[in-house]
């Protein structure tokens, strides 16, 4: 470290009151602090009549959820099997996370905005709900709908509205809430639900399978290129509840879809549980791009409140030359535990994982991916960029497995960690298993602090430190941001900027 430079800057910062002080300033007024404590602009609570079932979980609750959704018998059986299996499981402890024991009997497993009687036209959607999504930048009214993007809006446990449904239906694309899909497309659901993430997979997957309330279902028929981005927006509003959504995407032969997921929640002092499952099936030569901008409430600067985001996401590249690409920008949640994965079964199938995870205050993230190479000539790429600030803990955890049959498999992994401050942690836990001698598996990881030389260079060119940090971090994350669809990339970049600058959006 250039001591001289720091000393000078300390003097300067006194002389120019109001100018941000440099990152390495130890006086406590530094940008790092602001970075660490920036505000959350989605923290409002909407005043919406909500039906919440009593807290607690037992078979009757599972039956109640199923009944409320008017589900067929087979769906209830699915839930009960999962519930019974869950009873015998314990929460996983291997994450690099300090997580208090969750009292699963203290959570309400179903909360839904009260629906008024009458025809299901959009005019009948509670105006307060529309306002809520408006404020989140997701207009649901016909005239305001985003062109080029179909949205399924999920509030607490239920889907509120799916836009552009009819336009999609013309191409044979099914995009609806999973509850509707269970009712309207039972054969597809029976065939695919749980086929990639079994309820036995892990503790939270079992829990989700028992109590999931809503989510989205997508089916892209053979040879169809989905003409617009599909998007689900998840919002937790009610307090004392958990959200357990379920997403199922099936891309048939030669099809393509780009799917986006966004999420926010109000600021509350309590921790709320979000345990979702995303399953994706990709058939021959089909391609699915799945992008997430995760901005659940992260808790306050002292680590009070925030969402526990415990998610199982997995895709099966079943078809030859199929491709699944995960892109995630993770800035929210008090605790994140998720590993979007690819099972590369088809010959020549491709899996990708691009991630930016920014943690600050007392946030903890243990996230990464699994690439399971089963088929010949399968390829995977992992690029993970972690940014830690404040008192946060940010871990990359990933598995690359090449099974004996995966002749010619190839993996490249790059995971970098950037540290903004000396009280945070950045960790890397890659697991690499190679069982085929024709495979080439490469893993590179670096950890460093933000470059003082770069900041100084920016300062010299007149860019204040705060802005310089933003610039540098954005540059650092660019490789991943570039993978996001355009509209989302702008949003995500803003989000990073907000998180970094501590400005109120």
């Amino acid at each position: 470290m250039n001591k001289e430079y720091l000393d000078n800057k300390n003097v300067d910062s006194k002389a120019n009151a109001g100018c941000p002080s440099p990152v390495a300033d130890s006086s406590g007024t530094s940008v790092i602090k602001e970075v660490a404590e920036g505000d959350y602009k989605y923290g409002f609570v909407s005043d919406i009549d909500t039906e919440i079932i009593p807290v607690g979980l037992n078979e009757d609750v599972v039956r109640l959820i199923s009944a409320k959704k008017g589900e067929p018998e087979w769906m209830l059986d699915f839930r009960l099997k999962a519930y019974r299996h869950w009873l015998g499981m314990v929460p996983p402890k291997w994450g690099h996370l300090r997580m208090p024991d969750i009292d699963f009997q203290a959570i309400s497993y179903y909360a839904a905005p009260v629906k008024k009687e009458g025809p299901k036209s959009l005019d009948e959607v509670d105006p307060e709900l529309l306002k809520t999504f408006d404020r989140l930048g997701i207009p649901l009214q016909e005239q305001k709908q985003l062109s080029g993007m179909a949205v399924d809006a999920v509030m607490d446990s239920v889907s509120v509205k799916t836009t552009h449904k009819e336009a999609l239906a013309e191409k044979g694309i099914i995009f609806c809430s999973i509850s509707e899909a269970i009712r309207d497309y039972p054969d597809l659901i029976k065939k695919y639900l749980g086929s990639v993430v079994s309820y036995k997979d892990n503790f939270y997957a079992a829990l989700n399978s028992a109590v999931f309330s809503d989510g989205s279902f997508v089916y892209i028929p053979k040879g169809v290129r989905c003409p617009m981005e599909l998007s689900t927006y998840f919002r937790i509003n009610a307090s004392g509840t958990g959200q357990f959504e379920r997403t199922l995407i099936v891309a048939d032969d030669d099809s393509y879809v780009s799917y986006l997921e966004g999420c926010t929640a109000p600021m509350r002092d309590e921790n709320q549980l979000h345990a979702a499952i995303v399953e994706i099936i990709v058939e021959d030569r089909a391609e699915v791009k799945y992008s997430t901008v995760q901005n659940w409430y992260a808790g306050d600067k002292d680590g009070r409140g925030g969402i526990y985001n415990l998610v199982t996401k997995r895709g099966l590249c079943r078809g030859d030359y199929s491709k699944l690409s995960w892109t995630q920008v993770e800035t929210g949640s008090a605790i994140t535990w998720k590993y979007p994965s690819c099972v590369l079964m088809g010959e020549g199938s491709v899996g990708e994982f691009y991630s930016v995870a920014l943690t600050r205050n007392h946030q903890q993230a243990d996230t990464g991916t699994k690439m399971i190479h089963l088929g010949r000539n399968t390829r995977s790429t992992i690029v993970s960029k972690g940014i830690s600030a404040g008192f946060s803990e940010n871990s990359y955890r990933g598995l690359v497995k090449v099974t004996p049959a995966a002749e010619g498999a190839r993996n490249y992994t790059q995971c970098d960690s950037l540290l903004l401050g000396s009280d945070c942690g950045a960790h890397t836990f890659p697991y690499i298993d190679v069982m085929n001698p024709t495979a080439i598996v490469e893993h590179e990881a670096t950890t460093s602090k933000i470059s003082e030389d770069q900041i100084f260079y920016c300062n010299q060119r007149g860019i204040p430190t705060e802005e310089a940090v933003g610039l540098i971090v954005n540059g650092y994350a660019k490789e991943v941001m570039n993978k996001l669809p355009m509209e989302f990339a702008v949003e995500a970049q803003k989000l990073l900027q907000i998180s970094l600058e501590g400005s109120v959006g």
Partner: protein
Amino acid sequence: MSNAVDQYLNLYGDYREAIGSHSAGVLNARRDDGAEALARAGRFHVRGDEGYEKTSVDEMFSPDFGVNVNRVNMPVDVGASFRCGVPNLSTLLAVVVNDRFVPSSTLIKNLPAGLTVCSLAEAAREMPRLVEKYYAKAACMSDASVALNTMLVQDGVFIHVARGTRLEKAVQLVDIFHSSTPLLAPRRVLVVAEEDSHISILKCDHTQGEDAACLSSEVIEIFAGRGARVEWYDIEESNASTSRRSQLFARQEEGSELHICVATLTNGVTRNDFHIDVAGGHASTRLSAMAIGSDRQHIDNSSVIRHAADYGSSDQLLKYVLDGNATGAFEGVIEVCHGARFVEAYQSNRNILASSGARMHAKPQLLIYNDDVKCSHGATTGQLDNNALFYMRTRGIPEAEARRMLMQAFMVDVIDTISLEPLRDRLRHMVDRRFAGVKAGCAECGSGCPD
């Protein structure tokens, strides 16, 4: 409680007096702690435990091994057997037969001033305060294997270098297994390098005879004082019926240098742990390892380098070439503690799978709690470079020979980390022979070493 643990706790219960009577007070004082810790652990690590993805220590310990509690002399003709002498490096030689320390006559005659190399039990009797100060102070008793070793170990090697003593000659320890029945040897080495001292230690593991299963339970503790430099070289050339559970614990004071190089050439099942605590500032650590596996060999190295002070530097290089049905595992952790500033820590793991039956598991990890660091790790698993292979063949070098040359070349940078030149040459030779398929025993060795 696992059967493996049970049998040793029973053995200890039955022979507590006998074990102690053939050892020394300082060692005896810690036995009950060991027994207690072992009982608490309940089992050794099994495959799938975090950090033990591919190696079951419990399985290593579960056969019905004997322990030579009553110190029955098992004579071995050391002179006619393995010497593993390094030409041009007249070492100070000592032999450990199973778990019994046997000094060579040259060692006794030529011991330089400031150096002590002797039986650990003897040291514990003659200088109990010194031994007590260090014994079992770095090793982590909560690990079941360390607990077992501490409970049962009766002798070992004690090496002490006085303040400011800089040794020119290397100390060489030759570990020999020699037993007609299945045997567990609890082995222990305690190295204390006082302030500003320098020492190089070369340890070679051998197994004589082919059949009886044997298990080495080895705990090595190294204390590098302020400004001290310790080089620790460890070459394993045992056989398929040998299991080795080796754990090295080192503690480094300010400005010290520790250099560890481990080569596994032939073995059965090996699990080596390296726990290095960089406690003092400006200390540097280098860990290099090579593993050459064929047939059903299994080689697992695990390292934890913990930087607790400013300006620490560490560099790790671990390379594996696996052929046949050999399996390899590497797990390495670089930990930079909160408040340890300006640390530079690097780790590199490169592996070649040369056959369809070979398997490699790698898990390099970074645990960083401070921002003023430069840390990186890299791991690759692949094959020999096809372009290089073709280039060599166009120059007329037959494919098999080109492959062998490339494999040897792959190990060159590990060998180059050795600072003792004669040892470097010797190891290069041993590696060449290993890849050529020649078993490197003294009987077949043409290096004509003295002794």
